[in-house]
């Protein structure tokens, strides 16, 4: 078991800096998810922790020890790759015992640890198969099994579910969640899928362009995004941003209005605005509700309807041309071209500066 500390971690390829000073604390036994769009440096960061990439600056501590220049094998980490990286010429059993084989473990020890890992992953019946005879999900389980047999203090997952189809992805996601509870080990998980991030994480770290945008528990990030990027990245469909003009502002609230929207009072959540400023009003699609022409705040024409069963997503073209996404949980019928009126609770909105 181990805690991990990243302090001012940097990585550059020549003059190009991809990780630009990252500080993260991961507690012992915590499930930490690095999330961000492609190219944000999340995989690079994970590979630096694994020891597959050199660290250009800053310090990396695992279990209180500086491991910047320690070989991967001596860091006590195990890694699961997106492409599984299981050895095609070995049976499942040999693959899972690989780490033990090369460290010269006895046959009995190998058999026992492989058996234990296979039980945890419910794959005892697959042990004598070859990787070519397995499905994608089974292959990924082999890779996870190989990680378990070494009994590492830290598990690293690099987009482990990205190569799986949707149904299997959910199944494996749950298995990984259970595995974390069962083993209690520190886990770091990289993904671009915010559903995986939200469901698995004790702590989410949102990255962008090699910098940490925000870190915290999933619900904290969802309800109190530190900036517009985090607000837009977490949540599906993503948050709407409406350009508004600030009419009045104090330390708690601001009164904002826009063309064809009556002034409303919204919380500023620590930000400072002055009358006359332009701001962005962040509004989650789920917090928008159908209303009547008199009470509705936003009005527009339905340009697209997506019915997902549990949810209906409506793309609304407003009078000034901007579009707004609304997600309704009730089973209400909307037609394309229909005029509708919407309302929302101002207390559940976020107000951002446009340049955030």
């Amino acid at each position, binding site marked *: 078991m181990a805690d991990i500390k990243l302090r001012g971690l940097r990585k550059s390829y020549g003059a190009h800096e991809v990780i630009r000073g990252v500080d993260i604390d991961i507690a012992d036994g915590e499930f930490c998810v690095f999330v961000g769009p492609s190219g944000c440096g999340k995989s690079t960061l994970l590979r630096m922790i694994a020891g*597959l990439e050199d660290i250009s600056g800053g310090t990396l501590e695992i279990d209180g020890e500086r491991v910047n220049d320690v070989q*991967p*094998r001596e860091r006590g980490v195990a*890694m699961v790759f997106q492409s599984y990286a299981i050895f095609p*010429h070995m049976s499942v059993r040999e693959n899972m015992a690989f780490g033990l084989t*090369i460290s010269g473990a006895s046959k009995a020890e190998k058999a026992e640890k492989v058996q234990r890992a296979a039980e945890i992953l419910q794959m005892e019946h697959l042990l004598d198969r070859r990787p070519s005879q397995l499905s994608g999900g089974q292959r990924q389980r082999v890779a996870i099994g190989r990680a378990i047999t070494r009994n590492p203090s830290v598990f690293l997952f690099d987009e482990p579910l990205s190569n799986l189809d949707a149904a299997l992805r959910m199944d494996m996601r749950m298995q990984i969640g259970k595995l974390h509870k069962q083993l209690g080990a520190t886990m770091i998980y990289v993904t671009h899928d915010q559903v995986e991030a939200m469901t698995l994480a004790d702590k989410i770290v949102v990255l962008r362009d090699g910098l940490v945008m925000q870190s915290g528990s999933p619900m904290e990030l969802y309800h109190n995004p530190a900036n517009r990027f985090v607000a837009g990245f977490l949540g599906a469909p993503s948050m709407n941003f409406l350009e508004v003009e600030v009419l009045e502002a104090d330390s708690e609230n601001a009164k904002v209005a826009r063309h064809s929207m009556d002034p409303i009072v919204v919380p500023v959540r620590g930000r400072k605005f002055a009358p006359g400023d332009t701001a962005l009003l962040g509004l989650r699609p789920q917090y928008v509700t159908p209303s009547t022409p008199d009470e509705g705040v936003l009005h527009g024409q339905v340009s697209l309807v997506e019915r997902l069963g549990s949810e209906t997503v409506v793309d609304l073209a407003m009078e000034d041309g901007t579009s707004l996404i609304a997600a309704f949980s009730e089973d209400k019928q909307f037609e394309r071209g229909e005029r509708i009126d919407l309302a929302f609770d101002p207390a559940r909105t976020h107000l951002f500066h446009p340049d955030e």
Partner: protein
Amino acid sequence: MRSSLTSANRAGWAFALPGIVLILAFIITPFFLGVGFSLTNQRLISPNATRFVGLENYREMLNIAVVDLQAKTDSAGKTVTDADGQAEFPRLRSITRNPDTPQYHGMQEWFRWVSGDTAHVVIASDVVFWKALLNTCIFVLMVAPIQAAIALGLALLINQKLRGITIFRTIYFMPVVVSIVVVSLLWRFIYSGQNGLLNNMLSFLSFAHFQPVDWLGNPHTALGAIITMSIWQAVGFHMVIWLSGLQTIPPTLYEAAAIEGSSKWQTFRYVTWPGLRHTAVLVLIVITMQAFAIFAQIDVMTKGGPLDSTQTLVFQAVQRGYGMQNIAGGSAISVILFLIVLVISMIQRWLTRER
């Protein structure tokens, strides 16, 4: 009903035609002609009509036997010895010209070994053929494993991201693109007995203690010299094949092995080598076939000599067919070579099959 292959693809066939014609003219037809000629007494130029002789050419070539010669004894029954104390044996012609043993008629000695008072003599109707066969086998047995191993070593060395690594790739590959005739001529200078580069270098390195050797003029060193030079010449080609094999191994496998704590040797043993399985089959078969076909080096450097110590099958086939105008004999050697290569390739494929 006509299939689309014959009706809709006229243009395709038209494009393939030149290739098909060339392959027919220079590979398929000669192959069958060769098999046919080997069953006749065909000569390059001859006033006599060609006759079908069946397997006579093969019988003549493959005819081999071991005969025992008893040491000469004097009247008291004691073995006669020469000045060195070695037993004296009757001359071989006492058997090969003996009317009592017509089956050995016309055969010549290839080699002999003596045990006690008996000399076992291997005799063959066509000693040069057997020497060529043996030399070719030695050549293949030396070249195939050594060249494959060195090529793999070079491929592992240059399969790294280092500044200027392409310069090394180019240097190692260069001998492959130079004509083998030119390479052979150059190496004749290197191996030269008087002022050759090799003798000079060895002499310099041993502070002039090394006695110059005429590498190509000495029956004990000639074949070895040609083997060395042949390995050097084609090693770059196989290096490139290994390299392409190395680059098909997914990098994440190496990363997974590194995280699991694999040493350099373990990584090679568990990741690299199993990943090169198909490449290894290819490289071995290609080297074996190329090695069996050795000709140009011999033709340029030694012409089969000295004392037939560098005779090879293809060189013999050419020399017989055109030098001695014995097309039938040359064809028979070619057919035998074909069968040997076929069998060996099949054995190799079987040994390296997917299990």
